[in-house]
């Protein structure tokens, strides 16, 4: 499968490997969402298990965005990873897998990564109007939006 994809996308797939028996590939940002569409249509990865992100504060492109896919027909999982810089948006994969609607909203909520073409991109777990994205590494564990807490809960601090 990787060979076919490599032929199709060339150097866009910078790494395709296995770690602890799990397949993953690192692809160029420009291949999203094309490669996801191909994975679903040609390689039968019809179930998008999860989308998540990882923040590396000091890297030039600080965010890893990861799609975890599963194929019922092949009984296989694969992880697709791409690197993006802060403030860069990704195309939404809601047209490919409707399940990614809430998953993308959560990534947006927690990391501030926008998804273009998402039907309703807004915060999902934190309240609307909250400032900051808690799963970024520069967001402290006891940090919170005190302004929001004071205005909406009528208390000095949630801590």
């Amino acid at each position, binding site marked *: 499968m990787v060979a076919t994809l490599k032929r199709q996308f060339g150097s866009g797939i910078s790494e395709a490997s296995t770690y602890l028996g799990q397949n*993953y590939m690192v692809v160029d940002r420009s291949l999203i969402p094309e490669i996801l569409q191909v994975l679903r249509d040609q390689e039968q990865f019809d*179930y998008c298990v*999860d989308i*998540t992100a990882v923040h590396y504060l000091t890297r030039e492109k600080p965010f890893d965005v990861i799609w*975890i896919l599963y194929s019922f027909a092949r009984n296989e999982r694969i992880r697709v990873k791409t690197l993006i810089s802060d403030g860069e948006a990704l195309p939404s994969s809601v047209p490919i897998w409707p*399940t990614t609607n*809430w998953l993308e909203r959560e990534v947006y909520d*927690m990391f501030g990564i926008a998804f273009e073409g998402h039907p309703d991109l807004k915060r999902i777990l934190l309240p609307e109007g909250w400032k900051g994205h*808690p799963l970024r590494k520069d967001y402290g*564990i006891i940090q919170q939006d005190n302004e929001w807490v004071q205005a909406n809960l009528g208390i000095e601090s949630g801590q």
Partner: protein
Amino acid sequence: MSDPSTNISHLELGDRNETFLDSNELVINMGPQHPATHGVLRVILKLDGEKVLGTECVIGYLHRGVEKIAENRTYAMFNPYVDRMDYVAAVSNGLGYCEAVEKLLNVQAPPRANYIRVILTELNRLASHMLWLGTHALDIGAITPLFYTFRDREEILKIFEKYCGARLTTHAFRIGGCLYETYDGFEKDVTNFLDFVTPKIDEYEELLTTNRIWVERTKNVGKISGKECIALGVTGPVLRASGVRWDVRKAQPYAAYSDFDFEIPIGQNGDTYDRYLVRMAEMRQSLHIIRQAVGKIPEGPIMAKVPKVIKPPVGEIYHSIEAPKGELGYFIVSDGSTQPYRLRVRPPSFVNLQALDMMVRGQLVADVVAVIGTLDIVLGEVDR
């Protein structure tokens, strides 16, 4: 159309086809403090009379930032936190987390630990399904099953309490195996429980399966096809009730599941009634698995050789298990330190809840309650 003043003028003009009431879409709010939402779920409903035109879920009331906490705790310290997500199936959460870290460390839990894990996890699946059945039936108007299921679930909690001292948030497993050896008479207790509960499940079915009110309230309610389930990422009994024979325990076996013979029950119609039947059949399969495991627990150590300070090598891992609600996955990124660099939980309840909108569109308000019940969500896991 939605401006009431225009409607009044219609009435004044004597337009009898369009009255004030039937020309309006009504937006009502359900929750977050509503007994039938099983926690702090808020659903905004758009209604045309009794018919649901659309819904929107507002979640996050129970958000504690579990994933952020994980980044600030060591691997062992984070272990009890996972019990607080799906708190009615804490043992499953712990199993998924421990196995994910074990994979990252490249260690294998010993066979004895795996058997103990399977027995406790299946007991927990029973407890979770019993709680689901009781509350789901209560939502629909049948009060009796709640008393029956809670009475019988108590026996499972007693076994947990005797095994590890806790009833709900058990923290039963440790990274590398189990901390506690089985207590004297553990296997006898489990066997006695199996003998006790087998006829009880028939009893629940007698109360509901052919009960006319139950059938009317659940048949053809909240239908979802297998294709739609896959597109929406729905897993667990909801997926199986729509005719897709898929279970992580069979597809990618973990712990000791490959040693046991069991079936994956499926439904055909993908409605609330089929989901009920699938979960009932699953409870029987769980009993079947426990019966095979008990009495055959291999001798040997219960803990693998795991260093005192857990420092997995740099790398990423995704591991998932079949929790009572569906596929529960952990994605862990290690940077070689004692704390996870990033830990992501793939919660089945969160993803399954997304299907609510599709399942209730065009149905009645009363069915929303039935569908929330049948999805079997736990808000602790939805919000994390």
